[in-house]
């Protein structure tokens, strides 16, 4: 089955440079300091932030800045086949990457000696899992009130027979490489870059540019959602 039809549309009707619909919500749960939920097409991710709080193990404590830890897990029914273990080496590797992303984005010097934990739960995966996790974590951190240098938005791009496509689903991404870029949109600097499967260097730059442009689009979306949320909150508070 062709991924891009002769008219230039993909299987779900998008053009190659079109993002999937993003729906998100901040502040789902009360117990974590910050929580958020994001849906990018069929990829659904829940994120919770606990912190800044006291470090649990003293030997990991860093007195200059805070320690950031991330744990990602998947529910059993997140993909087509049942996942036997919620946390395996793949999720561990992704957790490290996400922690690395936020090491660069959180203003760590503001919370010396403390720990910020980010917990990400993948409810359904359909391509672009790491991007969804990073975006959800950003929203959760904003909800928690942790000081960030900038939003962190993330997007995936792939390549299919010379055409670069943005935000590929699982089926579209199986054919080619998958490049995930995490960006600080206002500064324009890349915080994380991950490329799996072979891509030729001539095409790599085009794919990376597309992913960067996609990140900016994601940023617009997230920003408007956060604004709406803050306006709601303000509306509630202004009644008192």
């Amino acid at each position, binding site marked *: 089955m062709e991924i891009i039809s002769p008219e230039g549309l993909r299987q779900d009707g998008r053009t190659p440079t079109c993002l999937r619909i993003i729906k998100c919500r901040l502040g789902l749960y009360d117990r974590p300091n910050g929580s958020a939920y994001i849906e990018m097409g069929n990829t659904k991710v829940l994120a919770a932030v606990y912190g800044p709080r006291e470090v649990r193990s003293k030997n990991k404590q860093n007195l200059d800045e805070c320690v950031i830890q991330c744990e990602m897990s998947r529910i059993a029914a997140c993909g087509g086949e049942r996942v036997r273990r919620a946390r395996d080496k793949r999720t561990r*590797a992704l957790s490290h990457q996400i*922690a690395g992303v936020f090491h660069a984005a959180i203003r760590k010097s503001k919370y010396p000696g403390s720990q910020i934990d980010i917990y990400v739960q993948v409810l359904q995966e359909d391509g672009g899992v790491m991007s969804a996790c990073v975006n959800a974590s950003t929203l959760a951190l904003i909800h928690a009130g942790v000081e960030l240098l900038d939003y962190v938005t993330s997007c995936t791009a792939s390549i299919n027979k010379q055409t670069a496509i943005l935000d590929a689903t699982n089926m579209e991404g199986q054919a080619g490489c998958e490049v995930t870029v995490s960006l600080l949109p206002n500064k324009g600097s890349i915080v994380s870059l991950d490329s799996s*499967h072979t891509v030729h260097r*001539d095409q790599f730059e085009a794919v990376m540019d597309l992913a960067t442009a996609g990140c900016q689009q994601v940023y617009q979306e997230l920003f408007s959602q956060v604004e709406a949320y803050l306006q709601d909150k303000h509306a509630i508070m202004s009644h008192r």
Partner: protein
Amino acid sequence: MKETPLSTCERTALTDMVECGLRHDRRGFLEARDTTISFGREYGSCSVILGETRVLAQVTCEVVEPRASRPSEGKLSIAVHLSPMAAPHLEPGGGGGSEVDALQQVLERNIKESRCLDLESLCIRAEESVWQLRVDITVLNHDGNLCDASNMAAVAALRHFHRPDVLVEEDGRVTVLSHATSPPVPTFMRKVPVCVSYALVCPQEDKCLVLMDPTHVEERVMTGKLVAGLNPHGDITSLVFPGRVALKKEQIMKCLEHAFRRAKIIAEMVQQAVEDDLQTRATEDRPSGFRDKLVSDEEYKRQRFTHLMATKVLTLPTESTEAAVPMEEEPSAPEEQDPANETTTNVTATSTNGLVDTPDDLEESRTTAVIASVTKTCKNKKKKVKKTKDVKMESDSEEEQQQTLLTSQDLQ
């Protein structure tokens, strides 16, 4: 055992040195350490020595049933063992730990997912029996940059490996023939994947300096890391940049350009080493293996110094520089460098980026750098080597000077 903590003054010394354009072991920013590839007695056993990092890779094979989804392809599995033999702070067991996970991920992406090895040639009978190759990588000594070394070792071992010949009978039985009966068959590798690691050091918020092939102590000091897996044909097999630092796109593209150049060199090196060994194996009755190639640390350092002195004083580098940014000449330096000056064509001035103004300070910073590094044995040799190295120093503390960074001294 817990890792000995790096004192603050060591840490500051290293980052300040990098800011001034020096590395603690006198290399250029984009210079790799000495690499040696040697092979053992058996086919498929390879040891790579990258500076003081030593890695051993061993390839074994077995006949198994193929995977149901891919019935005519062989299997390849890669296992990394990082035990306290490599460094005392590592956990015994050699399995878990984030370092092993990251290493495993990079190697799998580079070698398995890039499909550089032709798995179809490992098929014996479709849907019934195929060869399964297993690469076991053991880190013998950890001095930084395990990704590059392990990748090189795995690739060289796979290229060197010869699998036994098989005889397939009509009723489907497979007989594995011994080496005496029939010569073993080499594996076929289409493209040689190479891994190049860069350490990113950020002495200040916005400045970001790129070091290639970091040693262990540089890895402890670095802020971020960029690992690029590629092959000389122009494919990027994997790119892992796990954050901690914010980079601009141009810096990443520059790193990739440099990585491609380096990839060509490494691929040729690996190819040459494999061919040389196979030739000597053909002539000798019994291959000598690692017997003559094991070298102690002391011996290695001594060899390295004599090699350095010989090459750095007498080389005539043929590459021409893109003189992008004119750099300030050191006023007092020419006196020491006169003999060296005549022999070198690209005189890139010693690093002065406004931080160190007077020649005295520069001398001082160099002597402190000397004191800070722990691996040197002879002080006199040090000074001589240092002076000749002065000529080759690039200053690349500002992004604009990245240009010059890439052009000079990347040959090793």
